[in-house]
Protein backbone atom coordinates (compact mmCIF):
# COMPACT_ATOMS: atom_id res chain seq x y z
CA UNK A 1 0.00 0.00 0.00
CA UNK A 2 1.25 3.40 -0.98
CA UNK A 3 1.19 5.79 1.90
CA UNK A 4 -1.01 8.91 1.69
CA UNK A 5 1.91 11.34 1.61
CA UNK A 6 3.50 9.60 -1.38
CA UNK A 7 0.14 9.57 -3.16
CA UNK A 8 -0.27 13.32 -2.60
CA UNK A 9 3.26 14.01 -3.82
CA UNK A 10 2.65 11.97 -6.96
CA UNK A 11 -0.62 13.80 -7.56
CA UNK A 12 1.17 17.14 -7.15
CA UNK A 13 3.92 16.13 -9.57
CA UNK A 14 1.72 14.73 -12.33
CA UNK A 15 -1.23 17.02 -12.98
CA UNK A 16 -4.06 15.72 -15.14
CA UNK A 17 -3.79 17.21 -18.62
CA UNK A 18 -6.11 20.07 -19.54
CA UNK A 19 -9.14 18.79 -21.49
CA UNK A 20 -8.59 19.17 -25.22
CA UNK A 21 -11.43 20.14 -27.54
CA UNK A 22 -13.88 19.88 -24.64
CA UNK A 23 -16.50 22.11 -26.30
CA UNK A 24 -16.33 20.21 -29.57
CA UNK A 25 -16.63 16.90 -27.65
CA UNK A 26 -19.75 18.12 -25.82
CA UNK A 27 -21.30 19.30 -29.08
CA UNK A 28 -20.83 15.92 -30.70
CA UNK A 29 -22.40 13.96 -27.84
CA UNK A 30 -25.64 12.26 -28.85
CA UNK A 31 -28.60 13.84 -27.06
CA UNK A 32 -29.67 11.93 -23.97
CA UNK A 33 -32.82 9.85 -24.41
CA UNK A 34 -35.66 11.37 -22.38
CA UNK A 35 -38.98 9.60 -21.91
CA UNK A 36 -42.45 11.12 -21.61
CA UNK A 37 -42.62 10.78 -17.77
CA UNK A 38 -39.36 12.70 -17.34
CA UNK A 39 -40.53 15.37 -19.78
CA UNK A 40 -43.84 15.72 -17.92
CA UNK A 41 -42.00 16.03 -14.59
CA UNK A 42 -39.88 18.90 -15.94
CA UNK A 43 -43.08 20.92 -16.49
CA UNK A 44 -44.39 20.61 -12.89
CA UNK A 45 -42.33 23.54 -11.51
CA UNK A 46 -43.72 25.77 -14.27
CA UNK A 47 -47.38 25.31 -13.35
CA UNK A 48 -48.30 28.60 -11.71
CA UNK A 49 -48.77 28.87 -7.95
CA UNK A 50 -52.41 30.16 -8.08
CA UNK A 51 -53.39 26.90 -9.82
CA UNK A 52 -51.98 24.79 -6.98
CA UNK A 53 -53.59 27.12 -4.43
CA UNK A 54 -56.99 26.89 -6.12
CA UNK A 55 -56.82 23.07 -6.08
CA UNK A 56 -55.88 23.20 -2.40
CA UNK A 57 -58.80 25.56 -1.76
CA UNK A 58 -61.25 23.01 -3.24
CA UNK A 59 -59.82 20.25 -1.04
CA UNK A 60 -60.02 22.58 1.98
CA UNK A 61 -63.66 23.47 1.23
CA UNK A 62 -64.51 19.76 0.88
CA UNK A 63 -62.80 18.74 4.11
CA UNK A 64 -63.82 21.86 6.09
CA UNK A 65 -67.45 21.71 4.93
CA UNK A 66 -67.66 18.01 5.73
CA UNK A 67 -66.19 18.46 9.21
CA UNK A 68 -68.56 21.36 9.94
CA UNK A 69 -71.51 19.39 8.54
CA UNK A 70 -72.40 22.05 5.96
CA UNK A 71 -75.07 20.44 3.77
CA UNK A 72 -74.19 22.41 0.64
CA UNK A 73 -70.50 21.35 0.59
CA UNK A 74 -71.07 19.13 -2.45
CA UNK A 75 -72.84 22.00 -4.24
CA UNK A 76 -69.87 24.29 -3.53
CA UNK A 77 -67.40 21.75 -4.93
CA UNK A 78 -69.63 21.19 -7.96
CA UNK A 79 -69.58 24.89 -8.82
CA UNK A 80 -65.84 25.30 -8.09
CA UNK A 81 -64.55 22.33 -10.12
CA UNK A 82 -65.50 23.81 -13.55
CA UNK A 83 -63.09 26.66 -12.75
CA UNK A 84 -60.22 24.14 -12.54
CA UNK A 85 -61.29 23.03 -16.05
CA UNK A 86 -61.21 26.68 -17.16
CA UNK A 87 -57.72 27.13 -15.68
CA UNK A 88 -56.52 23.97 -17.44
CA UNK A 89 -57.77 25.25 -20.79
CA UNK A 90 -56.23 28.64 -20.09
CA UNK A 91 -52.87 26.92 -19.62
CA UNK A 92 -53.03 25.49 -23.16
CA UNK A 93 -52.67 28.93 -24.70
CA UNK A 94 -50.45 30.49 -22.07
CA UNK A 95 -47.47 30.21 -24.45
CA UNK A 96 -49.27 32.01 -27.26
CA UNK A 97 -50.56 34.67 -24.87
CA UNK A 98 -47.05 35.37 -23.60
CA UNK A 99 -45.43 35.27 -27.05
CA UNK A 100 -43.38 32.20 -26.12
CA UNK A 101 -44.87 29.77 -28.62
CA UNK A 102 -42.36 30.37 -31.43
CA UNK A 103 -39.44 29.75 -29.07
CA UNK A 104 -41.08 26.70 -27.50
CA UNK A 105 -41.84 25.20 -30.91
CA UNK A 106 -38.15 25.15 -31.82
CA UNK A 107 -36.95 23.30 -28.71
CA UNK A 108 -36.25 19.60 -28.54
CA UNK A 109 -39.52 19.00 -26.71
CA UNK A 110 -41.74 21.07 -28.90
CA UNK A 111 -44.70 23.15 -27.78
CA UNK A 112 -46.99 20.21 -28.51
CA UNK A 113 -45.21 18.18 -25.80
CA UNK A 114 -45.40 21.14 -23.42
CA UNK A 115 -49.18 21.47 -23.87
CA UNK A 116 -49.63 17.70 -23.55
CA UNK A 117 -47.60 17.72 -20.32
CA UNK A 118 -49.59 20.64 -18.85
CA UNK A 119 -52.94 19.02 -19.71
CA UNK A 120 -51.76 15.75 -18.18
CA UNK A 121 -50.46 17.34 -14.97
CA UNK A 122 -53.59 19.44 -14.44
CA UNK A 123 -55.81 16.46 -15.27
CA UNK A 124 -54.00 14.41 -12.63
CA UNK A 125 -54.32 17.27 -10.11
CA UNK A 126 -58.09 17.49 -10.76
CA UNK A 127 -58.29 13.70 -10.39
CA UNK A 128 -56.53 13.89 -7.03
CA UNK A 129 -58.84 16.70 -5.85
CA UNK A 130 -61.86 14.63 -6.88
CA UNK A 131 -60.42 11.49 -5.26
CA UNK A 132 -60.09 13.38 -1.94
CA UNK A 133 -63.30 15.45 -2.06
CA UNK A 134 -65.79 12.76 -3.17
CA UNK A 135 -65.22 10.14 -0.42
CA UNK A 136 -64.89 12.83 2.28
CA UNK A 137 -68.22 14.46 1.32
CA UNK A 138 -69.94 11.09 0.72
CA UNK A 139 -68.81 9.71 4.10
CA UNK A 140 -69.81 12.87 5.98
CA UNK A 141 -73.31 13.15 4.51
CA UNK A 142 -74.10 9.44 4.09
CA UNK A 143 -74.07 9.48 0.27
CA UNK A 144 -72.57 7.20 -2.35
CA UNK A 145 -68.96 8.10 -3.26
CA UNK A 146 -69.51 7.16 -6.91
CA UNK A 147 -72.63 9.30 -7.25
CA UNK A 148 -70.97 12.22 -5.47
CA UNK A 149 -68.00 11.97 -7.85
CA UNK A 150 -70.34 11.78 -10.86
CA UNK A 151 -72.28 14.87 -9.76
CA UNK A 152 -69.02 16.81 -9.38
CA UNK A 153 -67.53 15.46 -12.62
CA UNK A 154 -70.38 16.17 -15.06
CA UNK A 155 -70.22 20.01 -14.99
CA UNK A 156 -66.41 19.84 -14.83
CA UNK A 157 -66.17 17.72 -17.96
CA UNK A 158 -68.85 19.70 -19.86
CA UNK A 159 -66.96 22.93 -19.07
CA UNK A 160 -63.69 21.36 -20.22
CA UNK A 161 -65.14 20.12 -23.54
CA UNK A 162 -66.92 23.39 -24.42
CA UNK A 163 -63.90 25.49 -23.37
CA UNK A 164 -61.49 23.41 -25.49
CA UNK A 165 -63.75 23.78 -28.54
CA UNK A 166 -64.08 27.53 -27.99
CA UNK A 167 -60.34 27.91 -27.32
CA UNK A 168 -59.55 26.54 -30.81
CA UNK A 169 -62.14 28.73 -32.51
CA UNK A 170 -61.57 32.33 -33.72
CA UNK A 171 -63.64 33.49 -30.70
CA UNK A 172 -61.29 31.73 -28.27
CA UNK A 173 -58.21 33.13 -30.03
CA UNK A 174 -59.47 36.67 -29.55
CA UNK A 175 -60.98 36.15 -26.09
CA UNK A 176 -58.31 34.43 -24.03
CA UNK A 177 -60.49 34.05 -20.95
CA UNK A 178 -63.53 32.54 -22.71
CA UNK A 179 -63.14 29.34 -20.65
CA UNK A 180 -63.94 31.33 -17.50
CA UNK A 181 -67.19 32.52 -19.11
CA UNK A 182 -68.09 28.85 -19.67
CA UNK A 183 -67.25 28.02 -16.03
CA UNK A 184 -69.31 31.05 -14.94
CA UNK A 185 -72.25 29.80 -17.00
CA UNK A 186 -71.92 26.36 -15.42
CA UNK A 187 -71.94 28.00 -11.97
CA UNK A 188 -75.07 30.02 -12.81
CA UNK A 189 -77.01 27.03 -14.17
CA UNK A 190 -76.01 24.80 -11.24
CA UNK A 191 -76.83 27.51 -8.69
CA UNK A 192 -80.18 28.25 -10.34
CA UNK A 193 -81.15 24.56 -10.41
CA UNK A 194 -79.97 24.01 -6.82
CA UNK A 195 -81.75 27.05 -5.36
CA UNK A 196 -84.75 27.71 -7.59
CA UNK A 197 -85.70 24.55 -9.44
CA UNK A 198 -86.14 21.62 -7.05
CA UNK A 199 -87.89 19.59 -9.75
CA UNK A 200 -84.89 19.84 -12.06
CA UNK A 201 -82.56 18.93 -9.16
CA UNK A 202 -84.67 15.89 -8.33
CA UNK A 203 -84.78 14.85 -12.00
CA UNK A 204 -81.02 15.28 -12.25
CA UNK A 205 -80.56 13.11 -9.12
CA UNK A 206 -82.57 10.37 -10.77
CA UNK A 207 -80.66 10.78 -14.03
CA UNK A 208 -77.31 10.49 -12.20
CA UNK A 209 -78.35 7.34 -10.35
CA UNK A 210 -79.38 5.61 -13.62
CA UNK A 211 -77.30 7.21 -16.40
CA UNK A 212 -74.52 8.91 -14.42
CA UNK A 213 -71.74 6.42 -15.08
CA UNK A 214 -72.31 6.00 -18.84
CA UNK A 215 -72.61 9.81 -19.12
CA UNK A 216 -69.27 10.33 -17.38
CA UNK A 217 -67.61 7.71 -19.60
CA UNK A 218 -68.93 9.45 -22.74
CA UNK A 219 -67.89 12.89 -21.44
CA UNK A 220 -64.43 11.56 -20.53
CA UNK A 221 -64.02 10.15 -24.06
CA UNK A 222 -65.09 13.50 -25.53
CA UNK A 223 -62.71 15.36 -23.20
CA UNK A 224 -59.76 13.21 -24.28
CA UNK A 225 -60.73 13.68 -27.95
CA UNK A 226 -60.93 17.47 -27.57
CA UNK A 227 -57.65 17.59 -25.63
CA UNK A 228 -56.01 15.55 -28.40
CA UNK A 229 -57.40 17.94 -31.04
CA UNK A 230 -56.05 20.90 -29.06
CA UNK A 231 -52.58 19.32 -28.79
CA UNK A 232 -52.64 18.49 -32.52
CA UNK A 233 -53.55 22.01 -33.60
CA UNK A 234 -51.02 23.72 -31.34
CA UNK A 235 -48.32 23.92 -33.99
CA UNK A 236 -50.46 25.11 -36.86
CA UNK A 237 -48.33 28.25 -36.76
CA UNK A 238 -49.10 31.20 -39.05
Amino acid at each position, binding site marked *: MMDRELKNRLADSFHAPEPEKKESFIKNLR*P*REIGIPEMVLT*QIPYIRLPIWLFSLLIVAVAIGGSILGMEDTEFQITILMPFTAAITVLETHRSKRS*GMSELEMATRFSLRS*VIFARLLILGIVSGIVLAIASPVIAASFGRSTVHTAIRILIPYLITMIISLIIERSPLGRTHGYASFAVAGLSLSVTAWAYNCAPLITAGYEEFVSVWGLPTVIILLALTITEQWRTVKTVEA*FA
Partner: protein
Amino acid sequence: MKLSVDRITKQYKNKIAVDRISFDLTEGVTGLLGANGAGKTTLMRMMSGILTPTSGEISADGIPVQAENYRALLGYLPQDFGYYPEFTAKEFLEYFAALKGIERKRAKEKTKELLELVGLSDVAGKKIKTYSGGMKQRVGIAQALLNDPKILILDEPTAGLDPKERVRFRSLIEELGKDSIVLLSTHIVSDIEHIADRIIMMKDGALVWQGRQSDVEGDLEEFYLKRYE
Protein backbone atom coordinates in the same frame (compact mmCIF):
# COMPACT_ATOMS: atom_id res chain seq x y z
CA MET B 1 -22.40 18.63 -40.85
CA LYS B 2 -24.46 19.56 -43.91
CA LEU B 3 -27.77 21.39 -43.68
CA SER B 4 -29.72 20.91 -46.90
CA VAL B 5 -32.59 23.05 -48.05
CA ASP B 6 -34.10 21.44 -51.12
CA ARG B 7 -36.65 23.25 -53.32
CA ILE B 8 -38.47 24.66 -50.34
CA THR B 9 -41.72 26.54 -50.99
CA LYS B 10 -44.29 28.18 -48.75
CA GLN B 11 -47.56 29.31 -50.22
CA TYR B 12 -50.40 31.12 -48.44
CA LYS B 13 -53.61 31.08 -50.47
CA ASN B 14 -52.61 33.36 -53.37
CA LYS B 15 -49.21 34.51 -52.06
CA ILE B 16 -45.92 32.65 -52.41
CA ALA B 17 -43.80 33.66 -49.41
CA VAL B 18 -40.85 31.41 -50.30
CA ASP B 19 -40.41 30.12 -53.83
CA ARG B 20 -38.41 26.92 -54.54
CA ILE B 21 -35.27 27.83 -52.63
CA SER B 22 -32.35 25.41 -52.48
CA PHE B 23 -28.95 25.66 -50.81
CA ASP B 24 -26.58 23.68 -48.62
CA LEU B 25 -24.86 25.04 -45.53
CA THR B 26 -21.83 23.74 -43.67
CA GLU B 27 -19.98 25.06 -40.62
CA GLY B 28 -19.45 28.81 -40.79
CA VAL B 29 -21.50 31.98 -40.76
CA THR B 30 -24.01 32.59 -43.53
CA GLY B 31 -25.72 35.94 -43.85
CA LEU B 32 -29.27 36.00 -45.17
CA LEU B 33 -29.89 39.39 -46.69
CA GLY B 34 -33.16 40.81 -47.91
CA ALA B 35 -35.52 43.70 -47.47
CA ASN B 36 -38.49 43.45 -45.11
CA GLY B 37 -41.05 41.09 -46.63
CA ALA B 38 -38.47 39.22 -48.73
CA GLY B 39 -39.36 35.90 -47.06
CA LYS B 40 -36.37 35.59 -44.70
CA THR B 41 -38.47 34.96 -41.58
CA THR B 42 -40.70 32.41 -43.33
CA LEU B 43 -37.61 30.56 -44.60
CA MET B 44 -36.03 30.58 -41.13
CA ARG B 45 -39.25 29.38 -39.50
CA MET B 46 -39.33 26.45 -41.90
CA MET B 47 -35.67 25.71 -41.20
CA SER B 48 -36.46 25.75 -37.46
CA GLY B 49 -39.30 23.26 -37.86
CA ILE B 50 -42.01 25.60 -36.65
CA LEU B 51 -43.62 26.15 -40.03
CA THR B 52 -44.47 23.33 -42.39
CA PRO B 53 -43.34 23.96 -45.98
CA THR B 54 -45.88 23.62 -48.78
CA SER B 55 -43.28 21.56 -50.63
CA GLY B 56 -39.59 20.71 -50.47
CA GLU B 57 -37.36 19.19 -47.83
CA ILE B 58 -35.00 20.37 -45.11
CA SER B 59 -32.56 18.05 -43.36
CA ALA B 60 -29.29 18.05 -41.44
CA ASP B 61 -27.04 15.11 -42.30
CA GLY B 62 -30.19 13.28 -43.37
CA ILE B 63 -32.15 14.09 -40.18
CA PRO B 64 -35.45 15.68 -41.30
CA VAL B 65 -36.45 19.05 -39.88
CA GLN B 66 -39.55 17.57 -38.19
CA ALA B 67 -37.50 15.13 -36.07
CA GLU B 68 -36.75 15.60 -32.37
CA ASN B 69 -33.09 14.86 -33.16
CA TYR B 70 -33.01 17.82 -35.55
CA ARG B 71 -34.42 20.15 -32.91
CA ALA B 72 -31.85 18.78 -30.44
CA LEU B 73 -29.17 20.25 -32.74
CA LEU B 74 -30.93 23.55 -33.17
CA GLY B 75 -30.65 26.96 -31.54
CA TYR B 76 -33.22 29.48 -32.74
CA LEU B 77 -33.79 33.14 -32.05
CA PRO B 78 -36.99 34.54 -33.60
CA GLN B 79 -37.38 38.14 -34.63
CA ASP B 80 -39.88 38.77 -31.83
CA PHE B 81 -40.41 36.73 -28.73
CA GLY B 82 -42.13 37.08 -25.40
CA TYR B 83 -41.62 35.61 -21.96
CA TYR B 84 -43.78 34.49 -19.08
CA PRO B 85 -44.22 37.64 -16.98
CA GLU B 86 -43.11 35.97 -13.76
CA PHE B 87 -39.76 34.81 -15.25
CA THR B 88 -36.35 36.17 -14.35
CA ALA B 89 -33.55 35.76 -16.93
CA LYS B 90 -32.18 32.83 -14.92
CA GLU B 91 -35.59 31.13 -14.75
CA PHE B 92 -36.16 31.79 -18.45
CA LEU B 93 -32.90 30.07 -19.39
CA GLU B 94 -33.46 27.17 -16.98
CA TYR B 95 -36.95 26.67 -18.42
CA PHE B 96 -35.57 26.45 -21.96
CA ALA B 97 -32.77 24.20 -20.79
CA ALA B 98 -35.45 21.80 -19.52
CA LEU B 99 -37.28 21.97 -22.86
CA LYS B 100 -34.01 21.29 -24.63
CA GLY B 101 -33.53 18.16 -22.52
CA ILE B 102 -30.46 19.44 -20.69
CA GLU B 103 -29.78 17.73 -17.39
CA ARG B 104 -30.51 20.00 -14.38
CA LYS B 105 -26.90 20.30 -13.14
CA ARG B 106 -25.58 21.06 -16.61
CA ALA B 107 -28.47 23.50 -17.15
CA LYS B 108 -27.49 25.51 -14.08
CA GLU B 109 -23.83 25.64 -15.18
CA LYS B 110 -24.76 26.59 -18.73
CA THR B 111 -27.22 29.26 -17.56
CA LYS B 112 -24.54 30.87 -15.40
CA GLU B 113 -21.97 30.69 -18.19
CA LEU B 114 -24.32 32.21 -20.79
CA LEU B 115 -25.57 34.97 -18.52
CA GLU B 116 -21.93 35.96 -18.06
CA LEU B 117 -21.32 35.74 -21.81
CA VAL B 118 -24.19 38.12 -22.60
CA GLY B 119 -23.36 40.40 -19.70
CA LEU B 120 -26.48 39.83 -17.61
CA SER B 121 -25.06 38.03 -14.56
CA ASP B 122 -25.67 40.96 -12.25
CA VAL B 123 -29.36 41.22 -13.21
CA ALA B 124 -30.01 37.48 -13.61
CA GLY B 125 -32.46 37.45 -10.69
CA LYS B 126 -34.52 40.38 -11.95
CA LYS B 127 -37.75 39.90 -13.87
CA ILE B 128 -37.34 40.14 -17.65
CA LYS B 129 -40.21 42.64 -17.82
CA THR B 130 -37.91 45.17 -16.14
CA TYR B 131 -35.24 44.76 -18.88
CA SER B 132 -34.55 47.12 -21.78
CA GLY B 133 -35.04 45.91 -25.38
CA GLY B 134 -31.33 45.19 -25.80
CA MET B 135 -31.18 43.18 -22.57
CA LYS B 136 -34.20 41.10 -23.64
CA GLN B 137 -32.51 40.43 -26.97
CA ARG B 138 -29.39 39.24 -25.11
CA VAL B 139 -31.53 36.83 -23.06
CA GLY B 140 -32.90 35.51 -26.37
CA ILE B 141 -29.41 35.04 -27.75
CA ALA B 142 -28.37 33.17 -24.57
CA GLN B 143 -31.44 30.94 -24.90
CA ALA B 144 -30.44 30.00 -28.44
CA LEU B 145 -26.98 28.91 -27.26
CA LEU B 146 -28.11 26.74 -24.32
CA ASN B 147 -27.76 23.38 -26.04
CA ASP B 148 -24.43 24.12 -27.77
CA PRO B 149 -26.30 24.07 -31.09
CA LYS B 150 -24.74 22.69 -34.24
CA ILE B 151 -27.29 24.69 -36.21
CA LEU B 152 -27.91 28.25 -35.09
CA ILE B 153 -30.68 30.24 -36.77
CA LEU B 154 -30.89 33.90 -35.80
CA ASP B 155 -33.60 36.13 -37.21
CA GLU B 156 -32.55 39.78 -37.07
CA PRO B 157 -30.50 39.15 -33.91
CA THR B 158 -28.98 42.61 -33.74
CA ALA B 159 -32.34 44.39 -33.54
CA GLY B 160 -32.47 46.40 -30.33
CA LEU B 161 -28.74 46.07 -29.57
CA ASP B 162 -26.72 49.23 -29.09
CA PRO B 163 -23.54 49.75 -31.21
CA LYS B 164 -21.25 48.35 -28.49
CA GLU B 165 -23.43 45.27 -28.06
CA ARG B 166 -23.51 44.78 -31.84
CA VAL B 167 -19.72 44.63 -31.98
CA ARG B 168 -19.60 42.12 -29.10
CA PHE B 169 -22.34 40.08 -30.71
CA ARG B 170 -20.50 39.95 -34.06
CA SER B 171 -17.37 38.52 -32.48
CA LEU B 172 -19.46 35.97 -30.60
CA ILE B 173 -21.12 34.85 -33.85
CA GLU B 174 -17.75 34.64 -35.59
CA GLU B 175 -16.51 32.36 -32.81
CA LEU B 176 -19.63 30.18 -32.92
CA GLY B 177 -19.30 29.81 -36.69
CA LYS B 178 -16.04 27.89 -36.23
CA ASP B 179 -17.89 24.79 -34.98
CA SER B 180 -21.50 25.38 -35.99
CA ILE B 181 -23.69 26.27 -38.93
CA VAL B 182 -24.84 29.82 -38.26
CA LEU B 183 -27.54 31.42 -40.40
CA LEU B 184 -28.16 35.05 -39.57
CA SER B 185 -30.77 37.21 -41.24
CA THR B 186 -30.58 40.94 -41.48
CA HIS B 187 -31.36 43.84 -43.76
CA ILE B 188 -28.30 45.70 -42.50
CA VAL B 189 -25.28 44.76 -44.58
CA SER B 190 -22.73 45.93 -42.00
CA ASP B 191 -24.05 43.31 -39.55
CA ILE B 192 -22.58 40.52 -41.63
CA GLU B 193 -19.98 41.95 -43.96
CA HIS B 194 -17.03 41.15 -41.72
CA ILE B 195 -18.21 37.87 -40.26
CA ALA B 196 -20.20 35.96 -42.91
CA ASP B 197 -18.33 33.46 -45.05
CA ARG B 198 -21.34 32.97 -47.28
CA ILE B 199 -24.16 35.27 -48.35
CA ILE B 200 -27.68 34.41 -49.47
CA MET B 201 -29.83 37.19 -50.89
CA MET B 202 -33.61 37.01 -51.10
CA LYS B 203 -36.16 39.15 -52.87
CA ASP B 204 -39.93 38.57 -53.09
CA GLY B 205 -39.58 35.03 -51.74
CA ALA B 206 -36.95 34.01 -54.26
CA LEU B 207 -33.22 33.53 -53.97
CA VAL B 208 -31.48 36.21 -56.02
CA TRP B 209 -27.86 35.42 -55.24
CA GLN B 210 -25.81 33.03 -53.15
CA GLY B 211 -22.08 32.56 -52.86
CA ARG B 212 -19.00 33.20 -50.81
CA GLN B 213 -18.44 36.73 -49.62
CA SER B 214 -14.97 36.54 -51.16
CA ASP B 215 -16.68 36.14 -54.57
CA VAL B 216 -18.29 39.55 -54.19
CA GLU B 217 -16.38 42.12 -56.17
CA GLY B 218 -16.09 45.49 -54.50
CA ASP B 219 -18.30 46.72 -51.71
CA LEU B 220 -20.90 44.25 -50.36
CA GLU B 221 -23.51 46.96 -49.80
CA GLU B 222 -23.25 48.16 -53.41
CA PHE B 223 -23.34 44.59 -54.67
CA TYR B 224 -26.43 43.92 -52.52
CA LEU B 225 -28.23 47.04 -53.74
CA LYS B 226 -27.54 46.12 -57.38
CA ARG B 227 -29.40 42.80 -56.89
CA TYR B 228 -32.52 44.77 -55.97
CA GLU B 229 -32.50 47.22 -58.82
